[in-house]
């Protein structure tokens, strides 16, 4: 009975998208619609499978372990929902070869679901790679130039993971997560190091982030899935590696620093730096997609901090933030996609005033930005608050300030999007722009709902997280439907929500009471004269003063460092190439030398 249930789950969440991938490739024109169906079924089927705990050992020559528990469920909820929304969005925006798009999306969805279901390294690696290369092909579709960069880093991550797997296998002779007994501490160090670094690549942790800005600049409907959904697999992997496989006691075994494992602390620090650097770089981007990409890097840095710290509050916060990030970042990418779809421009400085023409898009993006900046009426607030508290609780004087600065920075670039794209003067070419098509709006709406709901009822999501925390053994936090509590406070969302609403209403009343005069947009600077059309939207060099301040630091670029490194290697390869001189006499000499060498080695080994 049990095995049937497992196969049922596996069938729904992995095999069905796989089948859909083939079907949608054959579907040609209707590929996207087929894709929607096959993305929707797993999303809906998540509902009946909530709080199931199915686990099965399967022997396919080696033992593998497929599991469907709350952890799986929680991550699938993000990924499948985001995938479904992305597909909806794609109806109106993917016109070129939709069959390739749909089938690859479903393939990577299947891979992602497979990763989430696997509790052994073999199936994890298989699904991980499947997800990796299908994402690569998707990036290749639109930004071929930089797809290679993603693939290289994707494979690098896979190779780090395989090193971890290999060392695990060396000690245990098994791929199962549960067979982890008897590994010495040194072994654990290397296993965890490789696994965490490998998964961190997918989370775009600095300095392994250079693929992200380019990969996130491809098709918006895919990127929202990619950034919102697939990057969560990194979170899943680190969670599994550090807390699922090794467990807190082993992490503590490396020594502790204010009750935080010395193994996790550097990664938390790295996460804080990632948040900081990602945010700073995002502020200075003019390309809307790149801005969001750097912002994504920064936000995942927060998650990394939480995972690194490893206190119950921190891990809960990390998971919560990952959940929020999945929704608001996909929503932002979709919003950006809608704007780009309508205007055909990427640069923030070339847009402006679109909020008047695309009000719904504006609304959705506004909420997403609230969530991103951590403003209380969205669930983004609480998760960030939890992470701050987790850092402050243990008095980390580097991590906490970095995160706070990053948060301020997040506000800056959010404002840039808001002002540069939606507010300000409507540019002439955009006079006749229409609202985004219905499927896009529906997709964005679906993604916005959780952000609002969980801002009042964080307890619901904390209940799921609580389950995960119990299963990983990190420990739990106190919470109820509206709030959570920690040693230094906690937050009650109901109170905050009501307070915020009161403030909002008061502000609204004041705003309405002032009886402002409506002025035409072109009227406001020019004292009633009827001027020729001028562009008055100040979106160029947006944060120039800030930029000037930062200039000495901005000249160091990790991108350039990588480029230099790769040039160095390529030049080295050209040198090594000269071994093959194309002269048969040299080759014969090699052969003679090889004979002597082999013989001496053999002699020595005798």
């Amino acid at each position, binding site marked *: 009975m049990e095995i049937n249930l497992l196969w049922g789950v596996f069938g729904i969440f992995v095999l069905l998208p796989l089948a859909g991938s083939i079907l949608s490739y054959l579907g040609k024109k209707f590929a996207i619609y087929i894709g929607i169906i096959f993305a929707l079924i797993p999303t809906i089927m998540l509902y009946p499978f909530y709080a199931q705990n199915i686990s099965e050992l399967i022997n396919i020559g080696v033992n593998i372990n497929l599991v469907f528990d709350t952890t799986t469920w929680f991550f699938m909820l993000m990924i499948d929902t985001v995938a479904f929304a992305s597909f909806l969005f794609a109806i109106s925006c993917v016109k070129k070869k939709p069959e390739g798009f749909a089938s690859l999306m479903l393939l990577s969805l299947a891979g992602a679901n497979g990763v989430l279901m696997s509790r052994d390294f073999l199936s994890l*690696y298989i699904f991980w790679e499947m997800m*990796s290369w299908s994402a690569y092909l998707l990036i290749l579709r639109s930004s071929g130039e930089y797809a290679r960069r993603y693939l290289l880093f994707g494979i690098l991550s896979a190779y780090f993971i395989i090193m971890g*797997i290999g060392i695990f296998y060396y000690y245990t002779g098994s791929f199962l997560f549960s067979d982890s007994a008897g590994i010495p501490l040194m072994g654990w160090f290397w296993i965890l190091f490789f696994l965490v670094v490998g998964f961190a690549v997918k989370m775009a942790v600095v300095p392994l982030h250079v693929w992200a800005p380019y990969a996130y600049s491809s098709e918006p409907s895919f990127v929202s899935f990619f950034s919102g959904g697939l990057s969560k697999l990194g979170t899943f992997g680190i969670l599994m590696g550090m807390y699922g496989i090794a467990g807190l006691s082993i992490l503590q075994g490396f020594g502790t620093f204010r009750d935080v494992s010395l193994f996790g602390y550097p990664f938390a620090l790295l996460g804080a730096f990632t948040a900081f650097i990602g945010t700073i770089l995002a502020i200075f981007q003019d390309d809307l997609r790149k801005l969001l990409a750097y912002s994504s890097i920064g936000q995942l840095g927060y998650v990394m901090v939480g995972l690194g710290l490893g206190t119950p509050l921190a891990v809960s916060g990390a998971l919560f933030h990952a959940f929020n990030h999945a929704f608001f970042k996909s929503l932002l990418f979709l919003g950006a996609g809608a704007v780009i779809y309508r205007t055909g421009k990427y640069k923030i400085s070339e847009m402006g005033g679109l909020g008047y023409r695309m009000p719904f898009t504006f609304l959705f993006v506004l909420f997403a930005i609230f969530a991103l900046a951590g403003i209380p009426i969205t669930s983004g607030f609480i998760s960030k608050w939890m992470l701050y508290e987790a850092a402050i609780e243990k008095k980390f004087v580097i991590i906490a300030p970095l995160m706070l600065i990053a948060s301020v920075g997040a506000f800056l670039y959010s404002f840039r999007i808001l002002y540069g794209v939606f507010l300000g003067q409507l540019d002439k070419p955009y006079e006749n722009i229409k609202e985004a098509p219905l499927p896009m709006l529906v997709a964005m709406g679906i993604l916005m709902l959780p952000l609002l709901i969980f801002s009042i009822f964080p307890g619901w999501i904390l209940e799921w997280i609580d389950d995960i925390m119990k299963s990983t053994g990190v420990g739990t936090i106190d919470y109820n439907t509206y709030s959570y509590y920690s040693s230094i406070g906690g937050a009650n969302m109901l109170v905050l929500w009501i307070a915020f609403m009161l403030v909002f209403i008061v502000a609204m009343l004041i705003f309405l009471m002032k009886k402002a005069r409506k002025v035409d947009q072109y009227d406001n600077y020019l004292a009633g004269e009827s001027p020729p059309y001028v562009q008055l939207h100040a979106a160029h060099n947006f944060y120039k003063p800030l930029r000037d301040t930062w200039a000495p630091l901005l000249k160091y670029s990790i991108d350039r460092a990588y480029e230099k490194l790769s040039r160095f290697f390529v030049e080295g390869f050209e040198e090594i190439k000269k071994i093959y001189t194309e002269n048969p006499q040299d080759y*014969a000499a090699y052969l003679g030398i090889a004979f002597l060498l*082999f013989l001496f080695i053999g002699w020595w080994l005798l």
Partner: protein
Amino acid sequence: MIAVHPVLLIAIPLFFAFLLPLIGLFSKKVLKYVVTGTIALNTIIALLVFREALNSPIFDILGGFKPPLGIVLMVGPLGGFIALIINMAGLIISIYGMEMKKEPLVKYYMLSLLLLMGANGMVLTGDLFNLFVFLEVTSIASYGLAAYNKDLKGFEGALKYVILGSIGSTFVLIGIALIYSQLRTLNMLDIATRLNEMDPYVKIVAFTSLFLGFGVEAEMFPLNTWVPETYDGAPHSVSAMFASMSAKAGIFALARVIFTIFAFTNYLWFVVIMGVLTVFFGEIIAYAQRDIKRMLAYSSIGQMGMILMGLGIGTTMAVEGAFFQMFSHAMAKALLFIAAGYMIYATQTEKMSEMKGIGRNPLIGIPLLIGILSILGMPPFIGFYGKFYILMGGFSEGYYAIIALFLAASLVEVAYYARFIKIAFEGGGKRYPSPKATVYIPLLLFAVIIVIFGVYPKPIFEILSHVTTFLTGGV
């Protein structure tokens, strides 16, 4: 009694190779069908032989004299498997071979049949000198085919192959002479049993000579210098044959020298080092290539190095991986060479940079992609299992540093294949002639095999479970 004689795998291609000139006198058009039919027949026999060999090793005694008096063909499950791979690859490549236009066609078909026969012989035979003879059959057929294009590139490649190949085979013969002088026998198992009668120093020299000689064919690092130019200069179908047939036969012969004859386990770590060096140099130099066939040739070196590494690690898992890798490399590299053949034909150039958008035709693009992903070791294609098993086997023996080096080299492999994929799928290229059936049918067949066994690798692993006996010196 044996139901199907493995010797038919050698006799049938030989018979038809002798018959071809006679058929060619009457009609040149039927030749290609005769060749494909012959190889198809051979494939069926290989399948039967293989099925029989799975139950128990077959000893096909030739001439009616019990070994070591006579020559014996000894076919274990692995030998049968490799023979099946070789014949299967040969069959699919022969479909592409129908494309061949360049005269003298009769000779081309004869040479390719005899190459197949030689590779089969190398895999099947149980006699050391006979192995040498078949090595020579394979390499002489290869020399002829390598220069078949009759242009400067072909001749230069063939010249290098001839020089290195004949020095290599001289060393094989020296090794045989040394072994014979001390044991007065040529049968492999007989040698293996009585190995301790040999003087240790003579044994080492003999081992090294054989190792070197077969290393040339198996594309081991300092001995594989002929590979790029020969693959580059040869006709496209011939490059595919080299990669999937003679290289596989060579490495299987090498494996038999290491495991079956000498069981020289002390030496294995050195084989691992040679393997990883092969991978390292192959992949790195492949990155620096601009021509597609050269790139594929160097990549082929890299893959062979991986197999060598798997053999050298020597645990059951790693050797299983190595044999799996032989299968996957035979399929994927043949696919890529055929695809490269089409691309060179369509674009009239070998430069990769000028092949913009060549993969946008799904008949080419999808098999190409599958082939490349399989070579890169991505699941769910067959390339994955071999690589993974080799790596895991290496880890279980504690070869961390070597594997890290190997993975670094693999990263380079990813880089250059990604570079090629990007060009091949880029928009804005010219319109290329659409591929003929003789091109896309083999491509699709290979792709289907790669996907099917990638998704369902269980039958192959069942076959490879016989590796244990192979490692302990069995057939």
